[in-house]
């Protein structure tokens, strides 16, 4: 009964988010018509830039905040943030099976459940994005004839409305079904404890990691990178992946810490050693993310080809330059130097703020990718950003929690669970006398 009402509430909340997006979509159609009729697709950007300099009238500035483009871009930023948590969890689940890991067995149900949000929830949440794109509010190339744009013409196999409409839902579904299958086998193992479920999952992960790599790369190319379809970067997929796993690890760290408090489900299976290992992985991905993002920047900077540099040149205009600096220092240097010390990795008064900071950094990173298209003059936050970011996160958090509670909180009969539970806590001085 309780679970049912929670499920209903989640559905209502999901309906709420989609309804806000749909309301925005239809509510501003007249504006859209006026825009489309008046000028080229960048007219609104220009108008917005003027509004920021105080040259435009009050009415125009107000429309731009409630414009469909603003809503669409804020929605996409929030979606990419949530997508990063789901694909990061899927990766950790696959990696667990691929490495035949023991230490992470007791926290695997958490990553399995987060990854399973991909289908159907993330699929449903992706539908407004497709709607925004079709109405010309997101990806400029939806309204450009490839014959008029060479950069689009050579990429039209991937960047055409039909391919987008088919591929985005299919990719999310495939990744989601992959996550659900592994989770289903894990839950089946809870009942009979047969080891063959583990080997099945391992085999699926071996193929699944390729599906994951191609799927995530294509998804972030289609959803985010193609906002500026002229851009080239082979690092982009792994760049999104690195940031995703980074954010997922600190989220998992805090979530499992909370779940292992006295009286909570992971109390008896999660120990400091695993907590330390998660923090070490988080630290590793701090470096990995910086390595990947720097490589992308450096190769483009060094080659200095205009078809690549324009992407970063646009991000050095106005306050975007400082956003880039925040990412450089906040996404890398601060967490890197902070987490060098191994004692810090278990210090909650440091790690909880680091977790909140990591969420902010990942959101800013997504903003840095999405928003300069809409606001070339600099960072321009609107009310939509926190609404969609928090709304979507809270919604998915609720869905996670209701899904998580339906099944045992950790893989009860996983053959490797024993390795996770055997912990090496040594009695403090004086305690050995009791033996």
């Amino acid at each position: 009964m309780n679970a049912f009402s929670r499920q209903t509430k989640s559905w209502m909340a999901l309906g709420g988010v989609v309804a806000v997006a749909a309301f925005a979509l239809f509510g501003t159609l007249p504006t859209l018509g006026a825009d489309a009729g008046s000028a080229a697709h960048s007219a609104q950007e220009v108008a917005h830039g003027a509004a920021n300099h105080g040259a435009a009238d009050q009415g125009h500035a107000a429309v731009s905040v409630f414009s469909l483009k603003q809503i669409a871009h804020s929605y996409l930023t929030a979606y990419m943030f949530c997508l990063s948590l789901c694909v990061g969890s899927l990766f950790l689940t696959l990696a667990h099976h691929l490495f035949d890991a023991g230490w992470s067995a007791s926290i695997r149900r958490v990553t399995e459940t987060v990854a399973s949000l991909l289908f159907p929830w993330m699929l449903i949440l992706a539908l407004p994005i497709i709607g925004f794109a079709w109405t010309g509010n997101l990806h400029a190339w939806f309204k450009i004839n490839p014959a008029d744009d060479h950069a689009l013409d050579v990429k039209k196999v991937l960047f055409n409305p039909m391919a987008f409409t088919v591929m985005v839902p299919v990719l999310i579904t495939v990744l989601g079904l992959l996550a659900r299958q592994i989770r289903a086998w894990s839950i089946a193992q809870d009942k009979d404890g047969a080891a063959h479920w583990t080997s099945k999952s391992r085999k699926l992960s071996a193929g699944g990691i390729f599906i994951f790599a191609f799927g995530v790369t294509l998804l972030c190319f289609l959803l985010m990178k193609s906002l500026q379809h002229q851009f080239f970067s082979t690092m982009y997929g792994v760049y999104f992946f690195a940031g995703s796993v980074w954010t997922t690890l600190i989220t998992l760290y805090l979530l499992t810490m909370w779940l292992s408090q006295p009286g909570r489900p992971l109390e008896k299976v999660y120990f400091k050693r695993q907590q330390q290992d998660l923090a070490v992985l988080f630290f590793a991905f701090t470096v990995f993310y910086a390595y990947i993002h720097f490589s992308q920047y450096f190769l483009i900077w060094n080659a200095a080809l205009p078809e690549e540099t324009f992407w970063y040149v646009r991000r050095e205009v106005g306050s975007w330059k400082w956003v880039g600096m925040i990412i450089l220092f906040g996404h890398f240097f601060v967490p890197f130097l902070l987490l060098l010390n191994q004692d810090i990795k278990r210090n909650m008064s440091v790690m909880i703020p680091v977790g909140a900071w990591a969420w902010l950094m990942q959101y800013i990173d997504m903003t840095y990718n999405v928003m300069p298209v809409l606001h070339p003059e600099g960072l321009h936050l609107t009310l939509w950003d926190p609404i969609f970011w928090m709304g979507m996160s809270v919604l998915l958090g609720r869905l996670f929690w209701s899904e998580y509670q339906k099944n045992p909180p950790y893989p009860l009969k996983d053959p490797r669970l024993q390795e996770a539970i055997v912990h090496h806590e040594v009695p403090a001085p004086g305690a050995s006398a009791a033996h």
Partner: protein
Amino acid sequence: MNSNRSKPHGLLAEFHTAADIFEAAMRCRDAGFTQWDVYTPFPIHGMDEAMGLRKSPVGWFTFCGGFTGFFTGMTMIWYMNKFDYPLVVGGKPLFTPLYAFPVSYEMTILLSAFGTLFGMFFLNQLPKFYNPLFKNERFKKSTDDRFFLCIEATDPKFGTDVTRTFLTEKCHAAVVELVED
């Protein structure tokens, strides 16, 4: 010569299982011994805590090495490309941390590794050419299937008979031998 041989190095206790030596290590720790060590054929998880070892300070050597490496790289490239012999390459600025970064990053790793390795050697006083334990025939099994714990004579709490009793009765050592210097 003879008097030199009779000086004890310490008491060597032999154990048959990892669990036994783990327990013994905790008892030695709690008994307040300071000059002692364990020798096992493989690493035993949690032994650091059982022995009451502090966190190794070798990380500071690593950090200092890395810090020096990073700024050496940056300074070197600034000195060569901007100060000593300015030369425009590919229309790029004479100096920017950007292109100096890969080299500085490699220097960071190199000097971090040096800091770690030589810091470790400095702290554990390696290489050491001689250790009295090597003369002991039983000790050779420490690389095979036996676990050893040695309390050295330099320990302020060391007393040949008292410590021997402690090792056999409290720590349940299988064999206890006096090793001479």
